[in-house]
């Protein structure tokens, strides 16, 4: 069937990303790695907030648990292939997401927000206090010299930026594609029905409780993976990964891009990383400027960049949307 405009642009994008480290300079490659990791995190948050309408304010907990779990496995099992530690991060995020989902199962709206925030602060307090396992205040390091061996490609060190770029790119594309696929399945549509009208979904015979648990677990898996990738990139993990400001940064990314649709968080994370980079070169108080920008955005334009582009596109109406193949972005 004739590939639509959208699939062509998608393929083009992937090719560009694949060739990027060869032509782009080191600085941007470095930034792109961070953008990929945050994109996975932001998309995992979209599954909760944007797609299912669950206002979870403690997403940093899932990210942090994944980071710590993979950090501990990296240290304890030095011969384990690095890819497996990323999966370990994902699985621990899944478990943590499931548990949080279970505890806050019947909370909605405001109460879900402060319930999840409280639980994430609890996990932060555990990480901060449990010095024996998590290294407490100073966190954990010690896997920067790690080598990754591939049967036919040879050995690469974690400090080799180009290798790390492809390693992270692979996982990021896989995660985003999986999330995208999930939104297209019956389960995905059920999640949107919960966002739109949880009460009616209940009366249609949909087991809303189980659906919420599944999406918390799935989102936890994704966030855990992005946590695991992040520590490979930063070569260290610390309690600040888990605290309120990290959850807030995830919110900032989602709102900048527009938390109501799939592309929003991805665009938001790229904008966030680049803003963070340039702002911090002017003042080390970039977090403050980001915060003010966020509040202004919420007050005056909460829909985000992607919606802005869409409206602009609709007015320009050059993107023809054929009946059948209508991708709800």
């Amino acid at each position, binding site marked *: 069937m004739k590939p639509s405009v959208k699939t062509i642009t998608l393929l083009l994008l992937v090719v560009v990303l694949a060739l990027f480290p060869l032509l782009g300079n080191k600085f941007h490659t470095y930034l792109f790695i961070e953008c990929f990791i945050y994109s996975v995190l932001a998309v995992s948050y979209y599954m909760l907030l944007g797609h299912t309408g669950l206002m979870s304010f403690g997403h940093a907990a899932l990210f942090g648990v994944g980071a710590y779990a993979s950090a501990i496995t990296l240290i304890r099992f030095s011969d384990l292939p690095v890819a497996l530690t990323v999966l370990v991060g994902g699985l621990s995020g899944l478990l943590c997401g499931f548990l949080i989902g279970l505890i806050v199962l019947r909370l909605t709206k405001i109460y879900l927000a402060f319930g999840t925030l409280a639980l994430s602060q609890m996990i932060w307090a555990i990480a901060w206090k449990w010095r024996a396992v998590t290294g407490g205040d100073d966190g954990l390091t010690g896997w920067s010299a790690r080598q990754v061996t591939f049967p036919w490609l040879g050995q690469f060190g974690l400090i080799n930026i180009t290798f790390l770029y492809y390693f992270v790119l692979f996982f990021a594309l896989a995660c985003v594609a999986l999330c995208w696929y999930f939104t297209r399945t019956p389960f995905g549509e059920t999640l949107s029905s919960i966002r739109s009208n949880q009460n*009616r979904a209940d009366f249609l015979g949909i087991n809303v409780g189980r659906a919420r648990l599944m999406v918390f677990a799935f989102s936890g898996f994704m966030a855990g993976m992005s946590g695991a990738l992040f520590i490979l990139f930063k070569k260290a993990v610390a309690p600040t990964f888990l605290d309120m400001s990290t959850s807030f940064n995830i919110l900032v990314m989602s709102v900048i891009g527009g938390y109501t649709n799939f592309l929003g968080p991805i665009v938001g994370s790229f904008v966030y990383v680049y803003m963070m980079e340039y702002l911090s070169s002017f003042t080390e108080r970039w977090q403050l400027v980001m915060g003010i920008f966020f509040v202004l955005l919420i007050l005056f334009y909460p829909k985000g960049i992607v919606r802005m582009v869409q409206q602009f596109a609709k007015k320009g109406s050059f993107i023809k949307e054929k009946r059948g193949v209508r991708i709800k972005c």
Partner: protein
Amino acid sequence: MLILKGVSKYFGHLGVIQKVDLEVIKGERHALIGPNGAGKSTLFNLITGYYRPSGGDIYFKNTRINSLAPHEITRLGIARSFQIINIFKDMTVYENMRITITAKHRMSLKFGCRIVSLGQIREESEFVLSRVGLLPFMDEPAGTLGYSQQRALEVGLAVALDPELLLLDEPGAGLSPDETRAIVGLVKEVTVGKTLVIVEHDMDVVFDLADRISVLNYGTIVASGTPDDIRRNETVKEIYLGNVLEKKSTARV
């Protein structure tokens, strides 16, 4: 089909439903009428599991459903519509129907395949939409439909579940007289051979649809019978025309 034995419901010390006994036979069209605040919607919410009864039991096909959650009761074969429009407003009409049909086939939590690949669900959705006359509005967001079309979708979603017992809560609420007639026609056509319980203020709708009527007043059933007995029933007249008082006396409140 549906039996209520001595069902009561208290909010604090306010007895909204007191010792209600009701029976709905298979294939029957039963109407529940009564003045505002008589407890009609509360009774509906008790049957569909939104509230738990404070006393008494509810049997559906002689299984006790008192303590079941709404989604469990719906899966047993009871579907309901709502007095206040309660549809998925920011999703298209087609998506509203597709969610319902997917739920009917118990596939809501499946993630093995893409939803567009499920041809059967697409056909069934389009079939029900055409019966409800909403096929031309397939791709419109449900919230932007006209009020009577939203009413049709509201009833359509309940019917799409193909339930054994259909509960309709004031399908004609807020509709103009001819729109009401259209909805009544639709309900009649779509509930052939099904058991129907309907709550309605509009008397023409009630007499047009119902085989049996129960009158609810202050949480108790005061009269039950065919439309003609109800029209002739004295207590019902009094409820509807207000208390015609002969003797006057000041009493302590």
